[in-house]
């Protein structure tokens, strides 16, 4: 859709666009070009010498089993975060929806973790789960569980998932509650007259009606787990033990750290950018529909 009523001016629109375009060119397109260039180079830590090595960095990456391990970790991690935070949020939203009177009050008490920085969330959870001083860790140990995230990859991944999912519950809760409250009462009540039980009603009517919201939230949660959890991982596990909590984004950072493997890190950046642009293109239809009505 286009506006019919417009202004005409030869230079003004360019001037208006200039700040946004400039920032985008300098801090998106130029670095992206740099990443591509760097991904073909082999360089020492201090940037004193560099060699053009064609696709060597990419070949090394695809030959490296740890890259696939990281890919897998990323999927398991994002899947778990999405599943955990979505299901808890849905449960809470259904309960809040059933009790319309208290809903807004409960909402206030549930939405604030959204505002907590991922890195701070990591610190809060490490304070509970550190095997030496954490209160929850001590509880787990007294229950006979050998809680040891320093060494046990599953434990380490679990604690990162918990901290990340915790932060995302508020966002999901908000959207689920809005989605639930948009479902016409009459539909539910009609089903109730038919004698459908609450549990069955939820599965056969509420959930299907919520599916657009659920799908949207799934995408948002996965994007969140991919990119926004860097701070959580960095404060809790730094990707360890034995790479058990290393996601793709974390690997870009840690491989380029100390200038150790800047070429390899750049190659990973390029691959990630391609994936992200691909995802955006897929989402395009969805977004464009919203944009133009």
């Amino acid at each position, binding site marked *: 859709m286009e506006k019919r009523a417009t202004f005409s001016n030869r230079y003004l629109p360019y001037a208006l666009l200039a700040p946004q375009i400039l920032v985008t060119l300098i801090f998106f397109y130029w670095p992206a070009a740099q990443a591509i260039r760097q991904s073909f180079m*082999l*360089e*020492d*830590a*201090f*940037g*004193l*010498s560099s*060699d053009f090595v064609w696709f060597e960095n990419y070949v090394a990456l695809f030959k490296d089993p740890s890259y696939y391990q990281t890919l897998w970790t990323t999927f398991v991690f994002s899947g778990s975060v999405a599943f955990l935070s979505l299901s808890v949020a849905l449960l809470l939203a259904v309960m809040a929806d059933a009790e319309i009177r208290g809903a807004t009050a409960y909402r206030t008490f549930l939405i604030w973790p959204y505002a907590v920085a991922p890195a701070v969330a990591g610190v809060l959870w490490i304070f509970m789960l550190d*095997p*030496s001083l954490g209160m929850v860790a001590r509880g787990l*140990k007294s229950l006979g569980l*050998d809680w*040891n995230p*320093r*060494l*046990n*990859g599953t434990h380490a991944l679990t604690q990162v998932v918990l901290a990340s999912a915790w932060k995302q519950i508020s966002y999901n809760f908000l959207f689920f509650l809005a989605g639930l409250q948009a479902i016409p009462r009459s539909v539910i009540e009609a089903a109730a007259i038919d004698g459908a039980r609450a549990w069955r009603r939820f599965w056969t009517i509420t959930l299907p009606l919520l599916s657009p919201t659920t799908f949207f939230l799934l995408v948002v949660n996965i994007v969140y787990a991919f990119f926004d959890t860097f701070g959580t991982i960095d404060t809790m596990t730094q990707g*360890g*033990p*034995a*790479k058990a909590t290393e996601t793709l984004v974390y690997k870009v950072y840690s491989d380029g*750290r*100390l*200038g*150790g*493997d800047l070429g390899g890190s750049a190659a990973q950046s390029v691959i990630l950018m391609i994936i992200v642009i691909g995802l955006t293109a897929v989402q395009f239809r969805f977004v464009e529909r919203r944009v133009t009505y």
Partner: protein
Amino acid sequence: MRLTRIAAFAAALGYAGTASAQTEIQWWHAMTGGNNEVVVKLAQEFNASQTDYKVVPSYKGSYPDAMNAGIAAFRAGNAPHILQVFEVGTATMMSARGAVKPVYQLMAEAGEAFDPKAYLPAITGYYSTAKGEMLSFPFNSSSMVMWINKDALKKAGLNADQPPKTWPEVFEAAKKLKAAGHATCGFSNAWATWAHIEQFSAWHNLPLSTKANGLDGFDTVLQFNGPTQVKHLENLVELQKQKVYDYSGRTNSGEGRFTSGECPIFLTSSGFYGNVKGNAKFDWAAVPMPYYPEVQGAPQNSIIGGASLWVMGGKSAAEYKGIAKFFAFLSNTDRQAKLHQESGYLPITRAAYEKVKASGFYEKNPSFQTALIELTGKEPTENSRGLRLGNMVQLRDMWSEELEAALAGQKTPKAALDAAVTRGNALLRQFERTAGR
């Protein structure tokens, strides 16, 4: 904003005139706890001793963090004047010609009195070229020692004055300690690879890699997957299952487990002294690292740890002059002797060592000499002179991953060490290609 703050500060002290004339020397470091205080105090003393230069210490996080920050800042043309780099970063810094200013050159150009022979060769050798030219200034040197909680040993019915000497003895003691109430941790260590790969190999006179552990060339090949190292890791894996041994992470972030009393036997740096003294509420001692008695020649000698100060390139002559003055200030005999006794790090000059020895300090505090004895007890061999591997920080991460995989039971000890060697060699070859040109 910064300018006004400095101006306000200077005005408050009443010498607005001289403040602007000072040359600022940025010193990035990674010292925490008691040693952080030592750094700050040294800078204050130096700044008070003269008016031309001002050393500004700045904490940059852990050793790898500080090194990372320094390298990133150099690439961005924004390097500090002095960068504290831990011993494993030495090869990376050495290969960066143009990025660093060798200390022997710095001192000569600045005209500061500097006699390389005044320094302890066991320490400076590590930071010098084959010709004996000192490249970086040893600041805090240490070695790995075994810290023991004497009260806990006594409670477990062990003789605290005859602490375990060999690994089998340590294992036995740890089992008794576990039975006596240390359920989560009989013994442990910080710096996992330093303890069980690097120091372990030198201490048992086993090669870590060819070419004298890399000292004789970057074309070195790792070979620490020998039977002794594998057997040691097998023992640890077995004990980890029972929590007689409990892993405490790759760096020294787990050191609090000793001072809190959780782990009564703990291998880590001799530089841990300041924190033990400040935080441990029990009787303690630092004793030599354990060894396997059946290994020929063990114990050999230990290798050096800690960190040195690198001077970054591309600074002005006036700034270099100030840095040289600061290094001369640090080398002062009384100051070195005091530093050694306060921090537990080793004295770096002969004069300071002799002075402390003559004062009878070691008789009263035998723990202080442990690291020195370990380092100088025997004439070093090809396997124990030290090590110089490129990308060592990344190598350590790689090796730690493999140790963690073995301790978690995902890999056999043999497979883990084999993988550590194979993966490490690939990284060494990459370093060889980019370095030294």
